[in-house]
């Protein structure tokens, strides 16, 4: 599962991408990014750092947003939105198969739903699903269409540990079969390291850190390399102490205002 970056012409090529929502300041400030075909990139970044903005730009969904830059992406792009964005007027299966034009669409949709643990819920309305179930339905919708580029915005955020591991398994398996380029936003550093070929950290509107992961296929948290990478990435994200302290337990003063844009 080596990275293909540089070997082939990249699946995604982004050059000096600027995006801003108001005069005050840009969200993306000259970002460059290449993703090779079949490469799995995890995107870390603080809340409000512009991860979703980048994904929307790659998906071509930011027509109204001011900005410049050059973006090249494959034709077949699939997006898992941060909100699960199921059409409320369609039952779950119809949401998953929407726009699928193959004859066995329903069958594939049912199978995809079973894979994300929603067997038997095909005819449920979206509002009848729990938060995590909605997220999985939306994941199934993306996976069922074999994209060349998968843009996933925190697709596992609302999942418990076990379900999350299952979804990891599923995603890796599908990636092995169909080899899409993947850009996956996550807040879980462990998840990023476990899943990705490469982890990038977005900060200040550019890629501040870009780490290839060479831990082999069996990645254990016990592995010192894993722990080092983890500490490094957390440091990039501003967390020095890594959960060792329960910070609330010492009389910590007011938060600094850094997270405020």
């Amino acid at each position: 599962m080596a990275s293909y970056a540089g070997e082939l012409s990249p699946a995604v090529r982004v050059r000096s991408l600027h995006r801003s929502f108001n005069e005050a300041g840009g969200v993306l400030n000259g970002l460059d990014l290449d993703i090779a075909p079949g490469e799995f990139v995890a995107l870390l970044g603080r809340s409000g750092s512009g991860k979703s903005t980048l994904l929307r730009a790659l998906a071509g969904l930011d027509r109204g947003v001011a900005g410049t830059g050059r973006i090249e992406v494959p034709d077949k792009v699939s997006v898992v939105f941060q909100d699960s964005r199921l059409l409320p007027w369609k039952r779950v299966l119809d949401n998953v198969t929407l726009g699928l034009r193959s004859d066995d669409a329903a069958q594939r949709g049912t199978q995809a739903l079973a894979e994300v643990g929603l067997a038997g819920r095909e005819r449920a309305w979206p509002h009848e699903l729990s938060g995590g179930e909605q997220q999985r339905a939306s994941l199934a919708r993306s996976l069922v269409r074999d994209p060349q580029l998968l843009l996933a915005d925190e697709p596992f955020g609302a999942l418990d540990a076990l379900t999350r591991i299952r979804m990891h398994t599923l995603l890796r398996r599908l990636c092995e079969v169909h080899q899409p380029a993947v850009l996956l936003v996550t807040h879980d550093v462990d998840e990023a390291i476990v899943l990705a070929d490469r982890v990038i950290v977005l900060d200040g509107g550019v890629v501040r850190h870009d780490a290839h992961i060479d831990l082999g296929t069996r990645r254990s948290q016990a592995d010192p390399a894993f722990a080092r990478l983890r500490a490094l990435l957390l440091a990039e994200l501003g967390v020095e102490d890594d959960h060792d302290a329960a910070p609330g337990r010492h009389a910590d003063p007011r938060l600094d205002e850094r997270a405020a844009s």
Partner: protein
Amino acid sequence: MTTLTAPTRPVAAAEDVRPTRRRLGPGEPIRFGGLIGIAALLGAWVVGSATGLLDPRTLTEPWTVVETAGTLVENGRLQESLLTSGVRAALGLGLGVAVGTVLALVSGLSRIGESLIDGPIQVKRSIPTLALIPLLILWLGIGEPMKIITIALAVFVPVYIHTHNGLRTIEGRYAELAETLGVTRGEFVRHVVLPGAMPGFLLGMRFAVTSSLLALVVVEVINATSGIGHMITLASNYGQTDIIVVGLVVYALLGVTADAAVRFIERKALSWRRTLAS
């Protein structure tokens, strides 16, 4: 299984104690609640007439209305009028709804379509239908086509406006989603636009059904020999208050029924919604 010996506590009268919280939504629908107001109206009419508060010369008493209705049914005028008007209204409604929906789609999905269609429709709806009749007579004569098209013209406006508005107020994120799913324009219309605009369309239908009935009064003034509108017009020519009131009662019945039917469809077709009402 067990034989009854003595009255015991009913099985599993499990307690159900929930936190009480001030309910801000309207709460559970009252079954047949809609009829209460109408019954009250009817009651006021009966009482008002019986006590003489309502001058029967202004508003005929309910019993006289029933009597007159009986007579009209006996001599067949009411049924005939209902049939004629019903066919006219239905044809006009069908035509108007079809045209209104198609125009709303064209105008809602393309800015060019909108800039061509929307203005003239706003002009049309600002102009009293009565004033259009001479033109329609000129172009379509005084026969049935003119009548049906006039009804359709009254009907298509609310259908157009509501469907267009419903369509335009679909949440943008669903269009985004559709774009990322690579659906065709046809699929987009079928799976996103039409269901998303359905609430608007159905609200439009509530106005459309009553418009089609109300338009009867206007069109059946011209070269009609039967129909509810004709019956009312004729009766008011001769000051036959009782027949007018029969006509109005029929109108009220038809209107309320049609509205209730559309709302029933609304409840069924929009069961996916979680709203204040549900």
